[in-house]
């Protein structure tokens, strides 16, 4: 044991470089995992955390909320489908608003008060009870979307008073407000006086008690012309970009997870080769191979520990830089990642361990002592 620590102390540069490389790699893994969750939550949090069981899109919209509109007779037809308890309009659009005296982008979701489509993650205040009231995302509290703040839709449109805050209800990475559908209509008209008719983006459906949302969604798709019914989860997964973001980040993360154990495994293998003669000598004077293997494992664990601590520091710092994504420092995922990486590193150090076990104490007596 002492030998393991002494060696690390004497060869600071070597072990430092290794811990540094491991630290950076683990940091990149942590950072990208946080970015992935943050991005996806910021893109579609509003869909995930609203109360409708089924969302009905225009079938031309390719599951894109921004590209979907529902005609009045489609809305009426959806309400008639078996298993649908309530079918209400849900509108979504991005506006320029003034909050805290400054112009900014904001997404408005207009839903029928009390009906499906209301935010489900309220943590402070209350839901809107009439026109001109809205629930904002907790993340944007400090940017003029706190309780009591008044947000005005530009140019010269409706004013919305924030009466409640909910968690993870952003859409398209912009500040988001859930308001009464009539308020949404007013906002749309203010922006575009030429509008002939304000249509909802999708139908928010609450299914009858006991009915299966997936079955009802499929039935709506089959029975109503020109629409596509999706359960909440299907709508989230099918949102443009979500699956491609997931698969690209998946590949990147897999590669990073591969590189860490390769780097540590190789390092310890080389170090073991270099120490082969010294280790043989130790064996010859009675050190058991389990002791030598133990020392090696201690070094692996220490390096990984150092690297993980370094990674966590970098991660906490970098997260500050992407605050606008609502990414927060979470300890649990970081610990899990460090453990996974540690296990992988221990696995690859098996190669070095095999090398240690193969050392023959007898060869110490023959002079050179090393067979490479």
């Amino acid at each position, binding site marked *: 044991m002492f030998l393991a620590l002494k060696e690390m102390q004497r060869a600071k540069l070597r072990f430092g470089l290794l811990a540094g490389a491991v630290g950076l790699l683990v940091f*990149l893994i942590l950072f990208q995992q946080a970015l992935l969750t943050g991005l996806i939550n910021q893109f579609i949090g509003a869909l995930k955390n609203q109360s409708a069981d089924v969302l009905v899109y225009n079938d031309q919209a390719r599951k894109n909320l921004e590209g979907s509109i529902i005609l009045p007779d489609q809305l009426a037809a959806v309400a008639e489908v078996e298993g649908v308890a309530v079918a209400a309009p849900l509108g979504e659009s991005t*506006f*320029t608003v003034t909050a805290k005296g400054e112009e900014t982008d904001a997404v408005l979701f207009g839903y029928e008060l009390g009906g499906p489509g209301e935010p489900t993650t309220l943590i402070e205040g209350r839901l809107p009870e009439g026109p001109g009231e809205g629930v904002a995302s907790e993340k944007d509290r400090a940017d003029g979307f706190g309780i009591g703040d008044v947000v005005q839709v530009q140019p010269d449109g409706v004013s919305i008073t924030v009466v409640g805050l909910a968690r993870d209800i952003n859409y398209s990475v912009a500040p988001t407000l859930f308001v009464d559908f009539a308020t949404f209509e007013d906002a749309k008209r203010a922006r575009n006086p*030429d*509008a002939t008719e304000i249509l909802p983006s999708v139908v928010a459906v609450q299914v009858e008690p006991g009915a299966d949302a997936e079955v009802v969604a499929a039935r709506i798709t089959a029975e109503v012309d020109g629409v596509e019914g999706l359960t909440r989860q299907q709508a989230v997964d099918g949102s443009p970009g979500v699956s491609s973001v997931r698969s690209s980040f998946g590949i990147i993360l897999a590669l990073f997870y591969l590189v860490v154990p390769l780097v540590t495994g190789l390092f310890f293998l080389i170090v073991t080769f270099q120490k082969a003669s010294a280790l043989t000598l130790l064996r010859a004077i009675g050190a058991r191979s389990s002791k030598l293997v133990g020392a090696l494992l201690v070094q692996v664990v220490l390096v990984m520990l150092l690297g993980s601590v370094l990674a966590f520091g970098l991660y906490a710092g970098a997260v500050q830089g*992407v605050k606008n994504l609502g990414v927060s420092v979470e300890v649990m995922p970081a610990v899990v990642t460090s453990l996974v990486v540690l296990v992988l590193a221990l696995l690859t150090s098996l190669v070095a361990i095999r090398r240690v076990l193969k050392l023959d104490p007898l060869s110490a007596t023959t002079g050179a002592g090393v067979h490479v």
Partner: protein
Amino acid sequence: MSLALKELRRRPSRFVVATVVLSFLATLLLFLGGLLDGLYLGSTGAIRAQQADVIVFSESARDSFLRSRITGEQRATVEAAEGVDEVGGLGFVLLGAEVPGESEPADVAIAGYEVAPKGVPEEPPAPGEGIADDRLRDQGVSEGDTILVGPAKSPVTIVGFVNDTSYLQQGTVWVDLDTWRSVQNANRPDAAVADDVVQVLVVRGTGDLATSIDTATAGATSTLTVDETVLALPGVKQQKATFNQIIYSTLVVVLAVVGLFFSLLTLERLGLYGVLKAIGASTGRLFRGVVLQAVIVAIVSFAVGALLALAAAAALPAGVPLQLTPARFVSTFIGLLVAAVLGSAVSLRKVLKVDPASAIGTAS
């Protein structure tokens, strides 16, 4: 020099694992860069193709095309502003479209124009006809097809193709302004525009156009250069910053890995270096050997990594916006080389400190 090369040739196994690790890192770098390029190019094509000096938005639009509205009156004011030579209207609408013979609808951006972007005919196509972006070929669109756009199924006949003009990851179909208006008004009644209204103006001219235009309209417009418009597109700036941060961190990892392996190799050879120095080899010569080996390992790793990245790109579904551009290969290659040279420099101190006299004493 030749000693370093000989070692590489005679004992390649020594360098294999380092090469494997660096190859993975090279793949990662290319992959990250390719994603960034794909996102960037696919989002901004239609804007980068604009052959204009500035783009005029309405003041309250916060540089968003979809929210901007320029009236005929404002247009007249802009046309009269100092330095303005040519003005054209431009408008986008993002919709799904039915393609004949395809079961899945295609994502299209219908764009009405007057001043032609790069690659698009000077004179806009006849009403109801459009020039499609190459990206739409992947979705089954071919010349002569009539696609049915949006819920209202507005027909647009494709009469030609143009390269690299997509808008927010959707294939653009370039049409004349009236066709754009009729498609927009039929499919997005909530965003309908009047006859003389456009989303933005593309302006050619001389002098300080942005200032002279915004002054002429008394602040009702917000004028940006084409480059500023590209960066104002949703997400473009943040994507660039985040991805570049990840790419640079990965390069630092490359540096650390190269530094680590070569300092280990150097350590192994210290005795040998003592002998070489004793028989007259200079520190410079020995160190050049180390750098040369690092460079060769980097080159081989880059080649392997590039092949892996190309294979990954081919295996991925079309939905992943991965684009491997020659420029990205060049910059990744340079990044790897620089990191390898800097990394190998960690061993310099060790090589410097080798004492030729040690060769006379003990063997190690």
